[in-house]
């Protein structure tokens, strides 16, 4: 219980401050609703929040899984082959100069309003941190480990599989934890650009109808969703990596 006390207390203080601000300034509720109003909106609209939240969650989970798999495969590939490193690495780095957000309209144009453009957005945003963190780990294997394995007669494939990959697991875990926080951003941006489902869509819809309390409620749900995904990834990393 002790480890929950401080964060809970801090949250309570922040909420109280927010409510005080609303009361003291008398700001209109369609500009800034207080936490009480947002809480009310969450209760009233829980069904649609859950419905849209599940859509976003599905996009996040798919995007995270596919993006992480692609990132892992890329990292192993460029760590293993000098030629792949020569050709792929510059492209990979340069690709990061393109803001993923700028691609969202194109993806919607190509893949429509369904699930796939959002999943692709999440994949794109997840791919790089996973690939780069894991590659750094694979590349940074303690020299002595590789020397020892070589003297023991291990082939390069065996060194990769039994030395470099296991030694890089902490780096992969770091990449995955970052990715878990980024994935929802990708999904929501995809939803903003064109969709009929998901928390991003709900935010736009609510804001268009001046239901700012519902918009905030959607943000809160998204935040909880992100924290939950991060916690699950963290748990999986601890357990299996």
């Amino acid at each position: 219980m002790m480890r929950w006390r401080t964060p809970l207390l801090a949250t309570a203080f922040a909420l109280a401050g927010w409510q005080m601000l609303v009361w003291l300034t008398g700001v209109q509720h369609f500009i800034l609703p207080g936490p009480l109003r947002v809480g009310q909106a969450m209760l009233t609209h829980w069904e649609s929040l859950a419905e849209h939240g599940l859509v976003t969650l599905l996009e996040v989970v798919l995007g995270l899984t596919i993006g992480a798999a692609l990132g892992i495969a890329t990292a192993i590939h460029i760590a293993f082959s000098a030629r792949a490193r020569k050709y792929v690495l510059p492209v990979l780095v340069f690709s990061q100069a393109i803001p993923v957000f700028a691609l969202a309209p194109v993806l919607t144009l190509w893949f429509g309003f369904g699930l796939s453009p959002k999943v692709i957005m999440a994949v794109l945003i997840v791919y790089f941190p996973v690939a780069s963190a894991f590659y750094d780990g694979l590349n940074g294997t303690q020299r002595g480990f590789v020397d020892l394995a070589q003297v023991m007669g291990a082939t390069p494939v065996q060194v990769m599989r039994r030395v470099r990959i296991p030694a890089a697991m902490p780096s992969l875990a770091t990449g995955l934890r970052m990715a878990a926080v980024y994935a929802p951003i990708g999904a929501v941006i995809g939803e903003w650009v064109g969709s009929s489902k998901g928390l991003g869509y709900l935010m736009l819809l609510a804001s268009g109808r001046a239901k700012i309390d519902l918009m905030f409620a959607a943000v809160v749900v998204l935040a909880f969703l992100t924290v939950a995904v991060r916690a699950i990834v963290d748990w999986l990393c601890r357990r299996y990596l």
Partner: protein
Amino acid sequence: MGGERLFGPLELTLRDGGWTCILGPSGVGKSTILRLIAGLEIGGAFEGEIDAPDVAYMAQDDLLFPWLNVLDNAVLGARLRGGVPDFERAKALIGRVGLTAQIGQKPPTLSGGQRQRVALVRTMMEDRPVILLDEPFSALDARNRAQMQELAVELFAGRTVLLITHDPAEAARLSDVIYILDEAGLRAMAVPEGDAPRAVDDAAVLRAQGALFKELRA
């Protein structure tokens, strides 16, 4: 290396079934000789011939894999090559170095001396005729170092050992053949009487140690 010649022509023959020691200051290229024999990259050009059978290698760093426990680290070679590890032999050797109680533990929970013992077992498990030791005892405290030296002599009996060290005392205790390596090349030195491991406080060992030390500083 870096355009500079690390050492000139050099000829080294190891005493079959005994301990050959190369003693020298840091940075003189002792480890490079060992890496050449082990078939490892040296980051430079090498001309010459190396006639070495299969070797096992043990370094100053224990190089235990932190994600494997003591037993799995001991059978690392077989694991890496995808072979079937001889767990019975590994357990027996782990018992001989006194780590049976720690057999399921991972390296971060062991002391430096315990870790180097596991590395010793791992080296033995390779069962190679030639064993290359790159300052394997120099990071240990005095008591552990003396114990490890004795254990190594006992376990490696009958094998051809090349020991790289900067410690004259270690060379005097353990070697059957001693060379000093410096800018001038390899020079054979006198070896004290008696079988290794010689007593730390043996008069002949102390004299030899003094002579080696003098020679190193010359």
